[in-house]
């Protein structure tokens, strides 16, 4: 999908999509899977969370439509909004954890059976990620999965670069320890 629709039509992709209901539904069908897929991976496979953040992303995109300048594909812009929604989610989680003075602990299946296949490894990584405190999970997602510079991740997380760097170090350490218990054997 390109930013412009035709030589005669100088509206950008988003303006065209918002012009009538059918155009929007078509654009929504096209872009929704990309945004959802982006978020699902970063939510460690939590489909309901990914759906909720996807919906928030589209609402924000409509509200902020004037900011889309058509220079990039709209789906790229949408994923940028999705990243901010994800950061908001992790910050809210972190505040909640701090408020309650506890870490988020999830039920973990510690079956001792051998789990050699990739699905089990995927699940082990997902469980390990979910067992991390929100801020540590967030920094791993932004720096490792999204390949963002630490400074950019720091901005998203609302922390100083130095604090984010330290957070990343602790996140990797904690992931390492937790994954050792979780990894397929």
């Amino acid at each position, binding site marked *: 999908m390109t930013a412009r629709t035709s030589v005669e039509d100088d509206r950008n992709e988003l303006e065209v999509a918002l012009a009538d209901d059918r155009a929007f539904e078509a654009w929504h069908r096209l872009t929704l899977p990309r945004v959802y897929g982006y978020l699902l*991976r970063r939510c460690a496979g939590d489909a309901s969370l990914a759906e909720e953040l996807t919906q928030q992303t589209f609402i924000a995109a409509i509200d902020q439509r004037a900011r889309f300048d058509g220079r990039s594909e709209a789906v790229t812009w949408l994923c940028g909004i999705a990243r901010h929604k994800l950061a908001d989610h992790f910050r809210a989680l972190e505040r909640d954890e701090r408020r309650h003075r506890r870490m988020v602990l999830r039920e973990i299946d510690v079956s001792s059976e051998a789990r050699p296949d990739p699905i089990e490894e995927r699940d082990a990584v997902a469980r390990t990620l979910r067992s991390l405190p929100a801020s540590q999970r967030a920094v791993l997602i932004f720096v*490792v999965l999204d390949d963002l510079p630490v400074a950019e991740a720091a901005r998203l997380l609302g922390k100083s670069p130095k604090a984010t760097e330290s957070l990343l170090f602790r996140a990797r350490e904690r992931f390492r320890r937790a994954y050792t218990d979780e990894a397929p054997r």
Partner: protein
Amino acid sequence: MTDEQLDVLIRSVDYDDALDPAFVAASAARLLGHVRRARAQDASSLGRLGRDLRQALGVPGRTMASPAVRGVSLLALLILGLVAGLLIAGALHRATPFGNGPLVVSVGGTLEAIDPVSGAVRRLLPRGERAEGVSRSPDGTVATFWTLGGSRDHLFAVDVDGGERRELAAGLSMTWDPSIDTWSPDSRSLATEVTLDGTARILIVDVATGAARAVTPPGMVAHNPLWSPDGGSIAFTPELGGRRGLSTIRTDGTDLHDVAGDLQGLSVAGPDTWSPDGQWIYFSADKDTESHAFRASVKTRSSEQLTQDGLRTYAMASSPDGSRIAFIAAADYGFDLWVAASDGTGAHRILAAGGLGGWSSDGQLILVKWKPPDDTLGGLGTIRPDGTDLRILVPFDPSCRRGWDESCVLGFGWGQARP
């Protein structure tokens, strides 16, 4: 498992991203209401005016509005710019000299020099530059900053009195590792942490000539440089075997050694400040939810804990005369700002919901990031060490606040070491 193996493992994970048809249908139905409201807004007179103004400003990818609308809009902008310029000029004219020099701040990427006495603000760079990692020389004459992105990051210096920016270390292909850049006491050199050939190293940059050289050995991962008061050494955090320690090295690359001693498994967050006599290096070290303030004796190469176990303390700064330290401690809401004697005794809280930005060079003020629960109140400002006279210099935009988090102030420097 190395960091690289860990990253590969996390990146390798994929999920079945097939969408639930019920979600797709419900999503579209709910969004159509928003779309229709947006359409109605855009069709209104105000909506059309907003669109025409955006087009008049020439947002790429758009055709321009009619010449008449464009002309009126540009004229309005010119008048606004003129008024703003006159206001700024007037404010600067009222500015009086002061002892601590200007506070240099990047607000949303715009680099500004602020007179902490009068509050006058002067922009140091043209609009469009996005300055991060800001620092200011101890003599108050030069600010440095980074611009990020592209194939490498760029380090620049600009005179605080104005003038063109100039690039430093221009010949190096490097990425800035966002620790706080630190100046030599003579204001001639900057130490910064960069990634060179895949390894975090400490770089010394001659600010006058732009020449740069790495001071830490090629194989050593090194973070968070902090120049000693005599200018002869740099304290930094080496990363060895998954643990971060505290070391010093001479600026010519010799005499590298650990100074923290046994921290019983705690990891050093980074050297925060030297005592002015160069005998101590203050730092915090943490493990899981535990974090304590320490000082390491450069002479005996051992550390002593300064704060009680029950207090989760972080970032510290020594007062310029070495008699006191300021630090932050975890609180029910974010962090509180505390002050203690330099040996950790007499610790007491001076400000709730306060982050630490270091001391003024005269020791009369502490720079704070005040973030009260009411998002409309906070800002970067100063407070006296006795907890009185809180004064906000850069109010935080409420839209940049999310509870304790603030995202618009991208860096600042006041010529002193800060955590």
